[in-house]
């Protein structure tokens, strides 16, 4: 994109969506005192020794996400786009998808956070751990996408 094409109006959906993400995280913090970090919320359900109340709010948060997802898929289906590696396109594609899922799941638990917990909540409160984690996962995300593009180009 050249600078002449830059029009802030093109980014209105991104700003509205981002504000909603911030609003959801803000409400969870100010009302329930919890951090909106998806990997942490799921991880807390997979860990033994949680109280019933702790398990319940996590379950309801995920249920809210899923229920909204079902409705959104009906009213704005184009919001759910294809992935670079789609299931069933080829064995390699399916394998890449599984490897990516395992890396995202294991990595976010090992690193105690993902895009929401570190990238939004942690960064906004200036937590050094979250700032470092976000720079690292963004950096490796960029490196991975670049590497895949270069392999694809040389392969064709």
């Amino acid at each position: 994109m050249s600078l002449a094409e830059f029009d802030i109006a093109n980014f209105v959906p991104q700003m509205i969506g981002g504000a909603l993400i911030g609003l959801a995280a803000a409400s969870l913090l100010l009302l329930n005192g919890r951090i909106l970090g998806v990997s942490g919320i799921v991880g807390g359900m997979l860990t033994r020794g949680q109280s019933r109340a702790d398990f319940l709010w996590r379950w309801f948060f995920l249920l809210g996400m899923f229920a909204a997802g079902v409705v959104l898929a009906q009213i704005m289906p184009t919001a759910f786009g294809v992935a670079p590696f789609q299931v069933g396109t080829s064995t390699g594609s399916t394998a890449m998808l599984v490897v990516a899922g395992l890396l995202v799941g294991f990595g976010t638990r090992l690193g105690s956070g993902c895009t929401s917990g570190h990238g939004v909540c942690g960064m906004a409160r200036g937590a050094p751990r979250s700032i470092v984690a976000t720079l690292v996962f963004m950096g490796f995300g960029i490196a991975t996408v670049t590497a895949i593009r270069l392999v694809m180009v040389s392969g064709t």
Partner: protein
Amino acid sequence: MMKIPAIAFFCGAVFATGLAVSGMTQPMKVVGFLDVGGAWDPSLAFVMAAALGVYAIAWQISQRLTRPIVASAFDAPKNRIIDRRLLSGAVLFGIGWGIAGFCPGPALVSLGSFSGTAVLFSAAMLTGMFAFTLIQRRFDK
């Protein structure tokens, strides 16, 4: 006390809507955002900027409260050490994110579309999370 789970449900739904509206549930768009040396699509930077702006205000408000409005206490992360565990986790996550264009939130919201890709990715992701739980004791000193 059903208030806390009800609020959590509402927050999950608003969060999911924000992800879908912003384009985070389009893996190709996420990959385009990370492809800074190629056909870079910077639009998702505005998602993060808007979310950070709103949450930063909420964080400042929370610092003036002794307790949250509904629950009895704030659950704030206390760990401040940047260790190998944090860094290697972020590295693995970044690689997986770059391959698939899905991070945990958008993957779980996309389950609502029942696409095979979202279902398989999420199943693998939950397996990875559970695998960590199995070996977690090694990290908790």
